[in-house]
C-alpha cells in the first residue's frame, strides 16, 4: 500500500508538468495580449506618446512578455527580417493599417534582439522613412531592463548596476529627433547611435553556450518555471497585487459557499434518496423524482434572480422581505462581534447557498437511491430481516452504512469545484469569490492569476483522485492496491 501511494505521488510530478506545459502554452499562445491598461484607447494613446511606449516596454519586461514563449531563437534574428518589418511599419512599402500594427508588434516582440538589425537598417538604408523608423524603435529596443526592480532591499551591487543602467537608458532616450528635423541634426543622432552600437556590439554576440542559454532560458516558460520553483506566483498583471494573498482572500468566500452547499446537498439528498428507495415505485418516490428533476432543470441565474426579487428586502411583498439583497455581510463588518458577524454571514448566504444546492440534489439522491436498492437486495439484508430485525433498523443500520460508501467517494471528485466557485451565483448575489475573479482575469489576459488558479486546481484534481482511490480501499476491504 505504501509503495502504491508513493508510486502515485511520483507519477503526479510528470502529470503536473504535462498539464502545466499545456496550460502555459494555451494561455500564452491564445490571441490577445495583456496590456498595461485595459482600455484600448489608452493603448492607442501610449503608442503615440514616446513615454507611453517606454512604460509599455517596461511593463512587458517586468512580466517577461518581451520574450518568446517556449524557445528563443532571436539570437539568430536576420537583419533582413527586421528591415522588412521596419519597411512595413514606416510605410516604405504599401501596407495596410493591420500590417503596420502587426509590424509594430513584431518589432516590440523582438525587443532588444532587433538592435543589430535596426542599426544595420539605420546605417545603410537609403530611404529616410526606414531610417527614421529604425531610430524610433532603437530608442526603445536599446534600453536595458533594470535588475530585480521590485527588490525591497537591493544589494549594493544591484543598486549600482541599476543606477548605471538607468543613467544609460535616460541618455539613450534623448537620442531622437522630431518628424521634420533638419538634416544635420538627423545625421548627428544617427552617428551617435552608430558609435554607441560599435562600443556595445558585444551585447549581441553570443558564443555557442550563450546561444543555447538564450534559446532555452530567455523565454517566458523558463522565467515562470524559475519563479514557480520558488513558489512565487507573481503579481497580477492588472492590479499589481501578489496573486496568492488575493487567492487566499477569495477562497474564504468560495470555500464557505461550496463546502456549505455540498454539506447541504448531502444532508438533503441522502434522506430523500433513502425515502425513494424504501418506497420504490410508490407515488412518493415518483413525486420526489419529478420534483428533483424539475429543480435540476431550472437554470440558476433565473432562480437566483427570482429568489432575490421576491425574498429579499426589496421584495414587493412586505411579508417576504426575509433576506438581504446580496453581498457577503452587512455594511461595517468591523462594528459587529464575531458571533453577530457569523449570524450575519449565515443570513446572507441562505439564498446563494440554496441556489448552489438545489441543482445537485437530483443526481445525488438518484445515486443514493440506486445504491441503497442494490444493498437492500443483498443476502445479508435478507438475513437480517429473516432473523426478525425491525425494517427501520435493517434499512438505517445495516443497509444504509454500506450504501453510503459510493456516495462519499464522490466527494473526492468534487474537491476542485471548491476552488472553482460559481460565476453566476457570485455575480447575481454580489459575492467577491473565485469564479468572478477568474472570469475577469481571463478577459483581461491576466496570465499570472489564471495560471496560479489553474495550477492549484490541477493539484487539487490530482490529490482528489488519489484520495478517492484510497477511500475506496479503506471503505471496501476487497479492494487492495499493490
Amino acid at each position, binding site marked *: 500500500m505504501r509503495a502504491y501511494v508513493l508510486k502515485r505521488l511520483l507519477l503526479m510530478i510528470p502529470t503536473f508538468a504535462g498539464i502545466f506545459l499545456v496550460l502555459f502554452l494555451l494561455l500564452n499562445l491564445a490571441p490577445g495580449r495583456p496590456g498595461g*491598461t485595459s482600455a484600448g484607447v489608452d*493603448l*492607442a*494613446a501610449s503608442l503615440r506618446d514616446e*513615454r507611453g511606449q517606454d512604460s509599455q516596454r517596461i511593463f512587458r519586461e517586468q512580466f517577461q512578455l518581451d520574450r518568446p514563449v517556449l524557445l528563443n531563437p532571436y539570437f539568430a534574428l536576420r537583419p533582413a527580417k527586421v528591415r522588412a518589418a521596419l519597411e512595413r511599419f514606416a510605410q516604405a512599402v504599401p501596407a495596410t493599417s493591420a500590417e503596420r500594427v502587426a509590424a509594430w508588434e513584431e518589432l516590440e516582440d523582438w525587443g532588444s534582439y532587433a538592435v543589430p538589425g535596426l542599426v544595420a537598417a539605420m546605417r545603410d538604408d537609403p530611404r529616410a522613412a526606414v531610417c527614421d523608423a529604425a531610430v524610433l524603435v532603437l530608442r526603445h529596443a536599446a534600453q536595458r531592463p533594470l535588475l530585480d526592480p521590485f527588490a525591497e532591499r537591493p544589494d549594493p551591487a544591484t543598486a549600482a548596476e541599476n543606477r548605471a543602467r538607468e543613467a544609460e537608458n535616460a541618455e539613450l532616450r534623448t537620442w531622437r529627433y522630431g518628424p521634420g528635423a533638419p538634416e544635420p541634426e538627423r545625421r548627428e543622432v544617427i552617428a551617435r547611435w552608430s558609435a554607441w552600437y560599435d562600443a556595445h556590439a558585444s551585447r549581441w554576440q553570443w558564443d555557442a553556450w550563450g546561444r543555447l542559454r538564450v534559446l532555452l532560458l530567455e523565454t517566458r516558460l523558463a522565467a515562470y518555471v524559475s519563479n514557480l520553483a520558488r513558489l512565487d506566483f507573481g503579481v497580477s498583471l492588472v492590479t499589481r497585487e501578489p496573486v496568492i494573498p488575493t487567492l487566499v482572500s477569495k477562497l474564504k468566500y468560495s470555500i464557505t459557499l461550496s463546502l456549505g452547499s455540498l454539506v447541504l446537498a448531502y444532508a438533503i439528498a441522502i434522506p430523500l434518496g433513502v425515502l425513494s428507495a424504501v418506497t420504490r415505485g410508490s407515488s412518493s418516490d415518483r413525486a420526489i423524482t419529478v420534483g428533483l428533476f424539475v429543480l435540476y432543470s431550472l437554470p440558476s441565474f433565473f432562480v437566483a434572480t427570482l429568489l432575490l426579487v421576491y425574498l429579499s428586502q426589496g421584495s414587493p411583498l412586505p411579508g417576504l422581505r426575509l433576506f438581504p439583497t446580496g453581498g457577503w455581510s452587512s455594511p461595517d463588518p468591523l462594528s459587529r462581534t464575531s458571533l453577530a458577524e457569523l449570524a450575519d454571514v449565515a443570513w446572507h448566504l441562505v439564498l446563494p447557498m440554496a441556489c448552489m444546492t438545489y441543482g445537485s440534489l437530483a443526481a445525488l439522491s438518484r445515486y443514493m437511491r440506486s445504491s441503497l436498492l442494490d444493498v437492500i437486495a443483498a443476502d445479508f439484508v435478507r438475513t437480517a430481516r429473516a432473523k426478525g430485525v425491525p425494517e427501520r433498523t435493517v434499512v438505517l443500520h445495516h443497509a444504509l452504512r454500506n450504501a453510503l460508501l459510493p456516495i462519499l467517494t464522490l466527494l473526492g471528485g468534487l474537491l476542485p469545484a471548491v476552488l472553482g466557485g460559481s460565476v453566476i451565483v457570485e455575480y447575481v448575489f454580489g459575492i467577491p469569490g473565485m469564479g468572478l475573479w477568474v472570469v475577469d482575469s481571463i478577459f483581461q489576459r491576466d496570465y499570472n492569476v489564471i495560471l496560479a488558479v489553474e495550477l492549484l486546481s490541477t493539484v487539487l484534481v490530482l490529490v482528489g483522485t488519489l484520495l478517492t482511490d484510497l477511500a475506496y480501499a479503506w471503505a471496501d476491504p476487497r479492494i487492495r492496491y499493490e
Partner: protein
Amino acid sequence: MARRGNGWPERLLLAAILIALGVVVFQLDTIEQRFLAQSRALDELTRALERARAAPAPGPAPTDGGAAPTRRWLHPEVPNLLHDPDYPMRVAGAKTDGRLVRWFGTDPKGFNPLLENGADVQDGIVLYVGAALASRMAWTDPEKWQKELAERVEVTDEGRELTIYLRPGVRWQAPGNLDLGDARHAWLRGDHFVTARDVAFSLSLIQNPQVENGSLKNYYQDLESWRVIDDLTIVVRWKKTFCGAIEYTLGVPLVPEFFYAYDEDGTRFPDATLGARFDQHWYDHLGMVGAGPYRLVSYVPGTEIRLERNEDYFGEKPAIREIVYQLYADPNATLLKLKAHELSFGSLRPGQYRDEIKRFDSLPPAKRPKQSPFWNGDLRYRTYLDNSFYYIGWNADRPLFRDKRVRQAMTLAFDRARIVEHVFVGLGEVAVGPYDVESPFHDPDIRPWPYDPARARALLAEAGFADTDGDGVLDADLTPDDGDPTRTPFEFSLLVYNGSPEMESAANILKEDLLALGVRMRIESAEWSLMQKRMDEKDFDAVTGGWALSYDPDLYQIFHSSQADVPKGSNRVGFRNPEADRLMEQAREVCEPTARLAILRRLHRILHEEQPYSFFFVRRAVAAWWKEVERVEFAKLRPKANSLPWWVDTALPEAGSR
C-alpha cells in the same frame, strides 16, 4: 458491530461540555461587545481631536486665500486666474452628520490617483479624497477656475508659463485603513504639509517612463520643465502655447512625496527604481492619501469602501459626514438595493426605468402603484445628460464612404429620434456633434439631420448610385486605392459591440431602413477585444462606438488627419479635411475665449456637414435617491452626480442601518 456506549455518564459529560462551550461563546461575545464599544468611543475621541486640531491653531496659521500681504508675487501685474468659490457646499439648515450609500462597482484596481484612470476611482474616490491645485467651477461656470490648494495662479509668456502659489498650512491626510499605532508605521505620524515639492514630485512621476499611466502621460507631452521657487511656489513651463496647459497643470493628480516615495517601513525607494516601486506601491490596495474634503477610512475588498469627512479640510466642508460605497458586480442589482433601502443613491438601467417609472408616468396619480417606492414618495428620481455620445463611424478610407454625400445619406436614413424613443426608452437626445449640448462650444443653430429617406435617396443618386443591374441593390463606379473604377454594389457591414442589446436593435432598424433605399448592410457583432482589434487595424466598413468627452474637448485625436495614419490611432474612420485640421490645430493654440469659441463652432459646422460619424445620441442617465437625501443638485461637469453640496436628513431613517 460493536455498539457505542450510550450510557448516562457519557451523555451527561457531553451535555456539560456543550453547556460550557455555550457559556464560553457567550462570554467571548460579551467581551467583544465591550471591546467594540470602546473602540467606537475611541473613534469618537479621535474625531473630536481632529476637529479640535482643525480649529485655528497658533503657529503657522492658515491664511484665508488671497489676502496674504506677506507673500510676494513673481508677476503682481498679472491678474489671478483663480476665483473664490461661489457655490456654497452647505446650506442653512443642512444636517451635517448624514451618511450617503452609493454603488461603486467591483473592487478597484488600486487607489493610486496617478495610476488609476478608470471612471470608478477617479469619480468616486479621487474626486473626494484627492485635492487639486484648482478646479473648474462645476456648479456655476465651468469656464472659470476656483481656488483649491492653489490660491493664486499667474499665466505668463502667452500661456506657456504658470506660476502657482499654494495655500499655506494645508496638511496631507493621515493614511486611513492603516494602524498608525503600529511601530512599523511610526514614521507616518505627525504633520505633513502640502508643498510645491509634492507638485514637482507628481509631475516627475508622470514623466517617469517606469510609471505606467500611458493615457495620462499623453497629456503632458509638451510639458517642458518646472521649477520649485520655495515651499509654496512652483513655476511650470510648457514647450509651446497650448490651451490645455492650464487644464493639465492645474488638474494634475497630486500625490504626497513623504508617502508615495517610501516603502512600508519608511525607507525611500532607490532613485533608479522609483517608478517601478511606485507602480506597485504597498498602499495602493489599502487606500489613498490626499488633502481633499473626505478621507478614505476603510476598504473591505468585495464589500465596501468608506469615506469620512476630513475635518481638517482647508475649504468649506461638505454636509455629508460619511460616504459608503457598496461593491458588487451586477449593476442590475442597484434597483433592488435601492428598494431595500440598502443604497440611498443609485442609477437605473434603461429597462428598469421603463418598468418602474416610464410605464406609469403618463397615468393619472390614482392609477400608479401605491406600494412602489417610486410613487409613494420614498424614492425620487431625475434623468440628466451624461456627457458621452454614441455614433456610427463610416470608414472614409473605404471607397464606399469616401463621398460626404453618401455619409450624409446614411445619417438621413438613420431614424435616430425614433430609435432613441423606442429602443433607448427615451433616455437620450439626438446628437448633433461632439460637444456637450450644454456647453458654449455647441452651436445651437445647427439643427440635427432629419430622418428623410427621400433626400437620402436623392443624395445617393447624386453620388452616382443607381440600381443598374436590377438586383434591388444600388451600385456605382468606385475606385479602390489600387486599381481602376469597378461597378460596386452598395453592400457593407456594420461592426457592433455585442455587449449592448440596445445598440444591436438600433443597428437592425437602420438595416431595414437602408434596405428600403437599396443598400444592403450586414451586422457583425463582436466582443470587445475583437472589436478593439478590428478598430485598431481599421478593418471595418462602419462601426458603432461612443466617446465620453471632457468639458472642453480636444478633438485632435479623434478627427485630425495625422491621427488617421498612426497605427492604432483614434481617427479610425480616416476623416481627412484640411480646414478641419487647421481649426483643430488652432483650437490648441488660440486660448482667448471669443476667438476660440468661433473656431470650435466653425469646426462643429464642418463636422456636421462632413458627417465622419452619424452622431447618434447623447445618453441620459437616471438617478434615483431616497427622500432623506436633500439638495440633490447635479454639476455641469462630469461626474455630474457629485455629492459635495448634498445633505442627508438624519431625522429620517438612513440607508444601510438596521
